[in-house]
Structures are given as C-alpha cells and as structure tokens.
C-alpha cells in the first residue's frame, strides 16, 4: 500500500520552520551587510594579490635588526607580568563580590557584575588609550591597561569557582571563631587555590599576546617597534619582529599549558 511508505524526518514542522527562518535571517543579514559596506567583488579579488605582494616584500627577514628588538621584547614581558599581577590583586575582591555565596548583598553582587562586564567589553587597546592619558606614554600605562582588561576575565571565572566551593568548610571555620579575613584565608582560599593559579597563568599567556599591541597607542612594548617599522616600510624588520612575537607567544603558551597541567 502506498500509505505504508512513510518518511522519517528529524524535526517536526514547527522546528523545521524555525530553523529555515533562522537561516533566512542570517542570509539576509549577511547580504545586507555586504551591500551596506559597498564593496564590489573586484575589491575582494585583489586581496590575495596584495597580501602576496606584502609577503614577498617581507622575505627574507632582516636578521641584523633582531638585536634592536630585545629590549622592547623584555619590556613587553614586563608589562604582561606586572599587568597580570595587578589584575590578580584587583580581581580577588571583585570575584568575592560577583560570587553569589560570598557577596554581602544584592547591590554588591550587581556591582561585581558591572565591573566584570565593563572590564571585559572594553578592549585592551582602548584601556591603553585611557591610561596613556592618565600615566603618560610608556609601559606603566600599558601594564595598568592590561590589569584593567584582565580583572573582568579573572573576576568572572574566579567568581564562578567560588560559587562552586563547599560552603560547609567555610561555616566550620566561622564556627571555630574565625574573623572574616581568617575565613577567607582558611575557608575559601584553599578551595580555589588551584583555580587561582591556573587562571592567572592562563591570563598571563593571553596578556603576553595583548601586550604586543600596546605600542600602537604609545603604551610601551614591542608594538612601538612594529608600528615604526611598518610606517617606514621596512618590511624585512617587520618580518623579524613578527617572528620574534610568534616565538614568544608560542613559548608562553607552552609554559602556561605546562603550569596549568601541574595544578590541575
């Protein structure tokens, strides 16, 4: 009988409609955006050629330039380290505010959430713009910018760790007559210490990447050299700097992964 042949479908009619609608909206937005930006396909076609041209000018890297990169590179690492340390100091109170089980009341909880959100929404380079005005051009502005950007990340993730701790231990310490500081040190800290170390190292790794760009707005680090070399069309030097950055970033990633492996 013909009615025996039934078709199997993964979704019912309503969900199918919803999914096609989602695709349609995405397509319309994509095409609309393309139209809005007013780019002819011709322009997009030249991209591979231009990029190829750039790459051919960068090769070979200017090895003699490597010596001049060492000092700014060390400055970059200083910015990343100091920024991470500063962020950690600032993030612990923020995390305590933003965790539902340690925050004193609703208002402080929202305060914590607002700090986390604002810190995360504003890019490092924008923070750097602000702190160059405050501290003047130089690596100090960069370190503070890195710290402010990292507070949101550390505060959010550390807050989530604090929310998951065993509160019985905290109550036990309190019951033994501990002061709030002692409760923090003996009830909460030991439980989040591995996460604290892991997250800090992870953020440090991200901060090494981020601190390579601070030079573009005058906040120190290897970005200054890169910016100068690009503006002088010294493509060989640019290639050297890029290789150095690549090396440092990969090295920090390896160190970070190893350290996180230790505390896990």
């Amino acid at each position: 009988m013909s009615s025996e042949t039934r078709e199997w479908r993964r979704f019912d009619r309503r969900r199918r409609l919803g999914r096609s609608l989602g695709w349609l909206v995405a397509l319309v937005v994509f095409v609309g955006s393309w139209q809005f930006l007013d780019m002819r396909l011709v322009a997009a076609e030249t991209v591979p050629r231009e990029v190829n041209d750039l790459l051919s000018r960068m090769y070979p890297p200017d090895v003699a330039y490597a010596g001049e990169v060492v000092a700014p590179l060390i400055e970059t690492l200083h910015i990343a380290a100091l920024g991470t340390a500063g962020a950690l100091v600032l993030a612990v109170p923020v995390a305590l505010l933003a965790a539902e089980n340690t925050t004193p009341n609703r208002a402080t909880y929202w305060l914590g959430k607002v700090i986390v959100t604002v810190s995360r929404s504003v890019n490092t380079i924008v923070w750097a713009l602000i702190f160059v005005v405050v501290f003047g051009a130089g690596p100090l502005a960069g370190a503070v910018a890195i710290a402010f950007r990292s507070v949101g990340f550390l505060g959010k993730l550390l807050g989530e760790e604090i929310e998951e701790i065993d509160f019985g231990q905290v109550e036990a310490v309190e019951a033994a007559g501990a002061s709030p500081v002692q409760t923090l040190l003996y009830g909460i800290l030991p439980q989040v210490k591995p996460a604290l170390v892991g997250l800090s190292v992870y953020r440090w790794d991200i901060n090494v990447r981020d601190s390579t760009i601070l030079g573009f707005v005058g906040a120190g680090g290897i970005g200054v050299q890169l910016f100068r070399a690009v503006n002088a069309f010294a493509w060989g030097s640019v290639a050297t700097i890029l290789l150095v950055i690549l090396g440092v970033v990969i090295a920090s990633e390896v160190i970070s992964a190893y350290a996180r492996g230790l505390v896990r």
Partner: protein
Amino acid sequence: MAAGERTWQRPTVFGRRGIKWAVYAAVVAFFAWSAWGVGADPSRIVRGLGRGVTLLGDFFPPDATPRQAQRIVDKMVESVAMAMVATVTGIALSVPVAFMAAENLAPRPLYYLNRGFISISRAFNAIIVAILVVKAVGLGPLAGIVTITFKTVGFFSKLLAEDLEDIDAGSVDAVRAVGASPLQTLCYGVVPQIVPRFAGLSVYRWDINIRTSTVVGIVGAGGIGSVLLTAFNRYDYQYVSAILLAIVLVVLVAEGVSAVVRRRYQ
C-alpha cells in the same frame, strides 16, 4: 617515644620543597624586575590616580551632538556589518582548514601545514594583523573584514578540528560499510556528528568578532574604532565616553544573543 612525634606537610606539585621555593623566589624576582623596568614607582602611581579622577570627571556625563551621535550609529553599523561578513567568510574558509587539521582525517603533511597556519593566526593579535592588512589593501572596512576573517580561521578551525578528532569512528565505519563514497562518508558519517558544535562555535565566534570589529578602526581598518581614536586625540572626553557606552552596549547585546542561541543548540 620521641621518634613518634611526626609532623605532616602538604605535598607540593613541584616534587621537592626546595624547587617550590626556588620557583616562588624566581617569580617574585621577575615581578620586582618588571616593576622597576616599567617604572612603576609609588609617586607616579599616586599622581596618575589623581589625574585618573580628573579624567573620570571629564568623561562624565557622556555627551554627543546630534551629528556626533549620527556618526556613532553609522560607524557602529559598519562595525557590526564587518563582523557579520567576516564571520561568514571566516567560517567558510575554516571548514576545509579544520578538516585538513584533524589528525584522524588528514594526511600528515597537510595536517602539519594547517596546524602551522592555525598557530600563526592565533599568535598575532587582531590589531597587528589589521595594521598589516591596511598596508596591503588600504584603509576601510575591507581591511577589517580580511583581518577578522584571518583571525576567525585560526580560532574556528582549531576548535572544530578538535571536535572532528573526537568523533565516533563507529558511525563513520558504518556509513562506509554500506558502500558510501569518501564524500558521502564525510556528509553522512562525519558532518552530522559535529553540526551542533558547529552552530555553537559560529555564534560564539560571531560574538568575539563584534568585539574585535569595534577596535580594528584604531589602526584604520573601518568601524567605530576610528571615531574613538579621533575623539581621544581631540580630548573630547564626553564624546569618548558616549562612544565607549555604545560599544559596551553592542557587545552586551551580542553576548546576550550568542548565549541564548548557544543554549538552544547545546
């Protein structure tokens, strides 16, 4: 017994206590060197704090003339449009890269080639990529799109490749066993297993791309970033705070949309 008195010490991850203290000392020494190298003396910080308070006063209240407000809207729309186009192109390019960067699907040389490409894309900050692309293709949103596309490929391919490496080989074998061609195996054995993750990752990356597209303008790659830099350079701080407010708002909306969509798919 005197020997019965024993103390317990927590084991350390370093294996030996000596190594532990050596690592701690090295880290502290490095921080001290950093503080000295960066020039973070207390008097400078206190002076900076004073100026920070002044600046905060200048920021407040956020304000923009109607023309400035119009400019914020225009450039913000440009940022969002850039993010949209770059997300689509980035993901389109990521799919082949991801398949070639999955250890269980790609031949060795291709695997290393694509892994290398992913590492390069991830190592360089979007601003660095943007400054190079601006030199190559000129100022404007096209540079932004190329930049964000390039960054998207590294992120997306890496995560997608990891998912591809985790797929259940049994269902792939089953499809192959009924006589499917390699292409059919890919379509019916591999792809259905990663579709939900694919959707989640796309939306997640779209969210990140919106954030990125708001700053690449600082080096001339289109979007709201250029307006922000100009306002900063003209010391028009109330306008700056209006722009920052707009950025935070758009980023929050994107984050909200992304969270909702990801929850529905996973």
